[in-house]
């Protein structure tokens, strides 16, 4: 499962949902796999406002991945040469090239996949297994 998916998941136990510590779920004993995909620059620029950045940084740290910057990149940061004095105005979307920041973000969000391991709720401690890239959120009868 992709790390971006974790941006939209929480503990399946009802009473945890109102507790802030149930998000994000914390990966444990994770086996990671890189599944290469084409960089989609327009998508990366548009998804920025939907990312829970602090939580994403926590997940990366817990997985032992390189640190993400403390604040999220801006759309301009994602364009190659976007911060140089040479203005990017006039260049169409199609001519824009992804910056290293964009490539790094793409690798974290969409190419880094948890193949095996667990996702742990920070509120109740329940562990959800990930097998063959599929997370299992089914609860034993007494927890439903």
């Amino acid at each position: 499962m992709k790390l971006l998916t974790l941006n939209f998941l929480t503990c399946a136990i009802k009473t945890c949902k109102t507790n802030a510590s149930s998000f994000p779920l914390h990966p444990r004993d994770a086996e990671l796999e890189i599944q290469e995909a084409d960089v989609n620059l327009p998508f990366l620029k548009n998804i920025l406002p939907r990312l829970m950045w602090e939580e994403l940084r926590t997940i990366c740290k817990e997985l032992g991945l390189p640190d993400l910057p403390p604040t999220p990149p801006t759309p301009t940061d994602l364009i190659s040469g976007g911060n140089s004095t040479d203005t990017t105005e006039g260049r169409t979307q199609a001519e824009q090239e992804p910056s290293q920041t964009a490539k790094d973000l793409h690798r974290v969000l969409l190419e880094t996949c948890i193949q095996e391991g667990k996702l742990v709720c920070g509120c109740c401690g329940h562990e959800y297994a990930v097998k063959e890239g599929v997370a299992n959120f089914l609860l034993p009868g007494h927890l439903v």
Partner: protein
Amino acid sequence: MLPTPSTSHVCFDRVYEPAEDSYLLLDTLSSSTESAFLSERFLQSTAPPLVLEVGVGSGVVLAFVAANARSIFGRHDILTLGTDINSFACQAASQTVSTAVKDEEQHEERSIFLDIVNGDLASSIRPHSIDVFIFNPPYVPAELPDFSRHTDYNAVPEGKTKTSFEQDSYLLELSYAGGEDGMVVTNRMLEQIPDILSKGRGVGYVLLCAQNKPDIVKQQIRDWGSGWQAETVGTSGKKAGWEKLHIVRIWKNDD
């Protein structure tokens, strides 16, 4: 007509095979009225919408949305996510959606397929994160299967190389048996909808059959409170003057 995604790799002994209900969802979501509604609700200038399908089965509906985002939403940068209680369906649907997205010729314009997770309805979804919700429920009025066997039946039995006949029957029952009025599972799902839909723009599409009493269901949704709307936006299978299958759109108009 937009192409229907391939499900030729799916074993229909234990995963629901695309049928009239699935195709009605495809037709309705890609109809001119719904694509106009969705394109206006999710303008290109706004953050990418997240589409969640609960009970993906073969994945044909989610794959269709993922592969035809440009026609349906007027934008390609949508996110798709699925859940299913059947782990075999999760594996199958994951392949269906990723293949459908990869088959898109324009690499720069592909939508983003996240994952299929194995879960009960939308229980693992972060509150208010879903923009478009799709559900083709187990809607047949038939006794619910015995869930106590689920953990055993949700994987290939240890020491075996394939599933048993009883196991396959159980997994298929999950995909169609809906209990009393065929509404037991759907009612549980409807209860979760106000909590998962994004505020201001969330919209749901739920399939119902005539035995589910769609008019009563729609009224119950409108009674959730001020602003909640429920309308039939697609039907099929006219039988003696009444429609057999309905697609109900559920949304909230902010006051």
